[in-house]
């Protein structure tokens, strides 16, 4: 699966590409399971280059949510295409993940970008 890890303003962003379907979701699962082992307050996914996600991809993210729930991590999904967002919303996953319009937005939400308000951490938390 194509992915890249970028660090913007000291915050790690996992960028995914292409279609997340039955063929690539096992790879995504491996990646996410590894990520879940190092607890973080928040995880940011950049999905702007994702054109489609199927149920196995959704389930993989749900599993990631389960794995990180104990640590109360926030999972932010940034830059979703309308179609991809609809797929999440159809099974009401907007209640599990925090959707942001773009990566900058997400970073600002978690308070990582230079000069952004530190206490915005609270607004991102639940």
């Amino acid at each position, binding site marked *: 699966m194509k992915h890249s890890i970028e660090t913007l303003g000291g915050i790690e962003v996992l960028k995914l590409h292409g279609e997340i379907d039955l063929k690539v979701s096992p790879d995504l699962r491996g990646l996410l399971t590894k990520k879940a082992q190092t607890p973080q307050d928040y995880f940011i996914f950049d999905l702007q280059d994702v054109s489609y996600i199927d149920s*196995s991809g959704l389930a993989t993210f749900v599993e990631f949510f389960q794995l990180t729930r104990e640590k109360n991590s926030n999972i932010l999904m940034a830059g979703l295409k309308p179609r991809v967002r609809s797929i999440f919303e*159809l*099974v009401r996953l907007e209640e599990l993940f925090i959707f942001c319009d773009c990566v900058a937005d997400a970073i600002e939400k978690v308070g990582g970008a230079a000069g952004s308000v530190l206490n915005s951490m609270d607004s991102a938390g639940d």
Partner: protein
Amino acid sequence: MTLDSDSSKSALHDRESKDVVIEVKDLVVRFGDRTILDGINFKVHKGDTMIIMGGSGCGKSTLLRQLIGSTVPDSGEIRLYGFDITRMSEKELDPLRKRFGMLFQSGALLQSLTIGENISLPLLENSKVDPAIVDLIVKMKLELVGLTGFENLKPAEISGGMKKRVALARALALDPDLLFSDEPTAGLDPVMTAVVDKLTCDLTRKLGMTAVVVTHDMTSAFRIGTYMIMLGSGPHQGKIIAEGTPEEIKKNPDPMLRQFINGEADGPIPLKLSQDDYFKHLLGSG
């Protein structure tokens, strides 16, 4: 016409035929000496919801069976994604079958499996997804059809309408880009009909899924349909007697169509036509 010339031409000129998912040409099906389908032609475009209407016994279900490659027609062509399925073997059909879902009229759930196992079946048999992920997918699919928490019951323990919805969840298990449904709302209460209709609309309008729906339920048909065809019965058996967008169908003055849509007992469809036959039959054909 071959597939290649078809798609290259359409890419340049005709936007419409670029996204043809199903193309039926001159389809003829006979059972013995009865002609069930007689020269059916239509196209279904990507993202469309095609409604197939018609009275009982007019061949709607037969047509659907042809489209999914369950039975072979007497003549004619059926192209799914450009492949002529009437000339394909079972083995060649399988990759195509993984791309579409089918909701049977009876639901056709496996009675020996639980609801959860029924939905996970296509995933476990046709993909290498981990069982833990499959479990989550099953729960999400059940939520889609409003049956969260029912995964451990057997089909015999739930009502007919629930079975229908489980069957829909199973048909959607592999996220098909084409869904065939045979009477998806039969046996559902009005609220659940609306839920299923909304789901169909969401899947087609927002995600671009294509749907072919056989239905008697006119409210539901006008709610979800983007194109409709009506199959005739009696002397028009096996022919398309009307087709068009829901607006065109609403305006269509054809008396048979009007009778069907408005649900009137008497009209051109069956009663009057068979009355002569009835007396002949009743009094003996002397």
